[in-house]
């Protein structure tokens, strides 16, 4: 078993004429917390969405646990889109948390969390509900399991979103600006849950504007700008001693 769980090789993505990712090379190790920062429009979210193939990349490779994500190689070495079955199979090994929560509004919190295990993993309802209750207890929603999402605060919804992603026992968690849609006073409760996940050794890739979280929790911080990696390293280096002028400039703006 390799130490590297996610690998990106010369990853490119464009929307129309606009090239959003211009060649990303990156390894993510098991148990690592990687925080991605950078100005808006720098390609952070697109990069994250390429990892579980919500976004189809145009060139390069994403390897999850040594296997190509989203494409397969024909006998002649050409890359073609992989089968829906294989794409779905790799996606359920990664959990994803969204900026706008994206809970299923026609289901209660508990139903949201058991949906993946029951429908996708075909686990029995009893077992799935027992596991879901443990998870919901852990994210502090033990008393909200029968509520519909619309009855919850943003912070509660996002914690339910984290529980839903964890219910599939993913090997990696992808966070796409998980606190950006929250009122300031609700950001802390979500970050606390994320910190406890990191402390448990979960592999996490987090796109965020929360510099405090990056500094305190990240093993490595990656700075992106205009579709490229500006620099990557331990938070102490990035925040106190950035090697690149663009990093210093970005940090000066966000830390005012």
């Amino acid at each position, binding site marked *: 078993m390799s130490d590297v769980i996610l690998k990106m090789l010369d990853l490119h993505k464009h929307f129309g004429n606009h090239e959003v990712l211009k060649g990303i090379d990156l390894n993510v190790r098991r148990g690592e917390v990687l925080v991605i920062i950078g100005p808006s429009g720098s390609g952070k979210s697109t990069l994250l969405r390429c990892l579980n193939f919500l976004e189809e990349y145009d060139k390069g490779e994403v390897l999850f646990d040594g296997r190509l994500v989203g494409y397969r190689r024909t006998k002649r070495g050409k890359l073609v889109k992989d089968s*829906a079955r294989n794409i779905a199979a790799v996606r359920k090994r990664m959990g*994803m948390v969204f900026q706008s929560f994206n809970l299923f509004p026609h289901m209660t919190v508990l139903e949201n969390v058991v949906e993946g295990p029951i429908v996708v993993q075909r686990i029995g309802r009893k077992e799935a509900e027992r596991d879901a209750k443990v998870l919901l207890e852990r994210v502090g929603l033990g008393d909200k399991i029968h509520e519909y999402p619309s009855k919850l605060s943003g912070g509660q919804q996002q914690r339910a979103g984290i529980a839903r992603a964890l219910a599939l026992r993913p090997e990696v968690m992808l966070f796409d600006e998980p606190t950006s849609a929250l009122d300031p006073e609700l950001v802390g409760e979500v970050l606390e849950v994320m910190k406890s996940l990191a402390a448990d050794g979960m592999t996490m890739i987090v796109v965020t504007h929360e510099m405090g979280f990056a500094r305190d929790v990240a093993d490595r911080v990656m700075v992106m700008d205009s579709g490229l990696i500006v620099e990557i390293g331990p938070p102490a280096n990035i925040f106190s001693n950035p090697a690149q002028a663009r990093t210093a400039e970005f940090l000066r703006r966000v830390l005012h």
Partner: protein
Amino acid sequence: MNYVWDFQIVWEYRQVFVRGAIITAQLTFWATLLGTVLGLVLGLMRRSTNAVLRYPAALYIEAFRATPVLVQLVWIYYSLPILSGLQMGNVASCALGLGLHAAAYIAEIFRAGVNSIDKGQWDASRAIGMRYTQMMRRIILPQAIRRMIPPFINEFATLLKLTTLGSVLAVNELLHEATNLINNTYRPLEIYTAVAVVFAILIYPFIYASQRLEQHWRIRS
């Protein structure tokens, strides 16, 4: 004006209205069933990324929406047997024609309903590893159907009233029966009024049920 209303005549010939209403209800039932099933398939086809599915569906939908129902009915009754050798009775032809017509509109209702679902719902269901059919069945359609109910009931009410076009194929639906009755009794005002009342009685329960359903869903989520 000293017109003397005589609704007694309606009661006397009540059997005629019952008979017509039954045919009208049957036509509506079969047309709705066909229209819904075919409309769902067409709606899905039209959303497909595969051009071989998408273009025929689009052509079908636009052709039926752009031409008069009356012509469609006449065409199916008279031309289809010539082209296909398939001989159908006038009631079956009428139900088929109305069903094919309704399918085009129901496909559009379906498409609009599915398109109205937030992109994040698709992302979230894909991210937990759902396949297309699981995502449609569990996440997208349950939400889309709630939004499709009001326009669907609209279409149903329209369809019920369109059955009156069956008279051109000599189908003995409600209006056709009523017209015959008028020719015998010379009481058009009373009889047309009664026809309107019967249609309202047929349609209203569905409108009421749809309103209750919407209310129920509003409270729940």
